[in-house]
């Protein structure tokens, strides 16, 4: 009587303790996908832009190419190459920030100011600075990335060292060693062995930059702009970032060498290079050949 009850009690306790280990495994939590924000601000120098004010400007000036949804599928999009930027994907070429990260507001503002050479994207100097800042803020309402991520830390660009012939020659060695010529070609004409097979991240054919065309490359024409291009990579295109494999001092040497490839554009680097017999011979030979295969128009 007492013993049976005690046994039953022990059995009951034991069974209660064993119970949790046979409960079914929990199903995965599915966190809801983040949504873009409808109210964004931009900060460019002293200016603060507001997306509400940018909306009207966008639907007047931008949506014809960039689309009502900001995804680059505007009415004009099927007829233009390269395709308009897709703000929903939020992958940008011209940045001060490392590959895979969002650009700074000032990067977007500068792109608006410059436009993109050899594309249908004009320079928007016709608008005033506040309008441009408002547009930058509005662009940020198309993608949830601006809500979930912060822009990358801008890369540090050291002061440009003195320009010397050795710097140019060393840059030339780097151009060979880093195999830039595989896409850009030995003379930088955009006719390297891999140039004809390049596709961007949307599988659209794309040509590498032709250094002999025009010095106004899409991400700017200063030496700092050129430095940033290969130290951050042009996201969404075949152009990678060399930040992990090029030291800042070497990067400046490469910038100086690349300027000597732009033989149609007068620059201190080209002038110095032309003042050496070796450089003069190389540049004069290029002027005779004059092939045009990369992106950009040969003057």
């Amino acid at each position, binding site marked *: 009587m007492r013993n049976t009850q005690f046994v039953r009690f*022990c059995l009951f306790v034991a069974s209660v303790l064993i119970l949790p280990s046979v409960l079914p495994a929990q199903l995965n939590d599915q966190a809801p996908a983040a949504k873009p924000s409808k109210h964004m601000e931009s900060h460019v120098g002293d200016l603060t832009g507001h997306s509400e004010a940018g909306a009207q400007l966008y639907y007047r000036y931008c949506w014809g190419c960039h689309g009502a949804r900001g995804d680059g599928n505007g009415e004009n999009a099927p007829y233009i190459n390269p395709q308009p930027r897709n703000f929903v994907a939020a992958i940008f070429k011209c940045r001060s920030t490392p590959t895979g990260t969002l650009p700074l507001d000032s990067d977007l503002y500068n792109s608006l100011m410059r436009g993109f050479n050899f594309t249908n994207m004009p320079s928007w100097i016709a608008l005033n600075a506040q309008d441009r800042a408002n547009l930058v803020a509005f662009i940020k309402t198309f993608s949830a990335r601006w809500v979930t991520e912060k822009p990358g830390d801008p890369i540090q660009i050291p002061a440009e060292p003195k320009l010397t012939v050795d710097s140019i020659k060393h840059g030339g060695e780097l151009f060979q060693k880093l195999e830039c010529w595989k896409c850009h070609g030995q003379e930088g004409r955009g006719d390297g062995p891999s140039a004809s097979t390049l596709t961007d*991240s949307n599988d659209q054919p794309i040509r590498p930059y032709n250094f002999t065309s025009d010095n106004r490359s899409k991400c700017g024409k200063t030496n700092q702009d050129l430095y940033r291009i290969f130290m951050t990579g042009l996201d969404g295109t075949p152009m990678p970032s060399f930040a992990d494999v090029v030291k800042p001092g070497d990067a400046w040497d490469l910038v100086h060498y690349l300027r000597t490839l732009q033989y149609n554009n007068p620059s201190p680097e080209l002038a110095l290079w032309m003042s050496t017999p070796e450089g003069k011979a190389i540049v004069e030979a290029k002027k005779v050949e004059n092939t045009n295969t990369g992106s950009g128009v040969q003057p």
Partner: protein
Amino acid sequence: METKQVVLAGIAMLAASAVAMAGPTPAGGTISGKVTYEGTPAKMKPIDMSKEPSCAKMYTTPQLNETVVTGPGNTLENVVVFISAGAPDDAAPSTAAVFNQKGCRYIPHVLAFQVNQELKIVNSDQTSHNIHPLPKLNREWNKSQPPGTPPISEKYDKAEIFPVKCNVHPWMHGNFAVLKNSHYAVTGDGGTFTLPNLPPGKYTVTAWHESYGDQSQEVTITGSETKPVNFVFKAKPY
């Protein structure tokens, strides 16, 4: 005496149940099977590596494109088989998943690893490659990796399966499968897979192939049995 025996029995039962609860998850069941195809798969084209002599010279016969790799008995290689529902997320292991560029190919062609697990990318070739994964949910980045430079270390924080390519060498294609838990396998040349250590529960097993899409099946594990699960993909002749 009787009471003493009963008390000992009771203590033994309590101890047994405590042991059952206290230790790590017991071995559990296994899902295993084979992935095959029906129909005629497209013929894989040979790759022309003449633009990269340093890689071309490593091969005596041309290499084939790897979008569909098959084996005897209609088996399908490079299929990622994983638990897509029913298992909790697992913390990333501390070992890195290694992706090697060798002979201008990606080894392995499909690399499966976990969310936030370290991905280590190695260049074993004499030529530069750029490593350009193409995710849509995760961040897209593109980095140059010359020969002799250290491995690139990266990770992904969202589960996703996406392609990887090298822009310099257009024939180089691979895939990354970033998964939420540790229950996954990639089929090899026998087309087989095994997913062990599954606690009792109801699971969705998904098989993914880069050309033939994905399929799922529901499987219930009740103890430590082995449940056979097979997948058959429809091959396309193009």
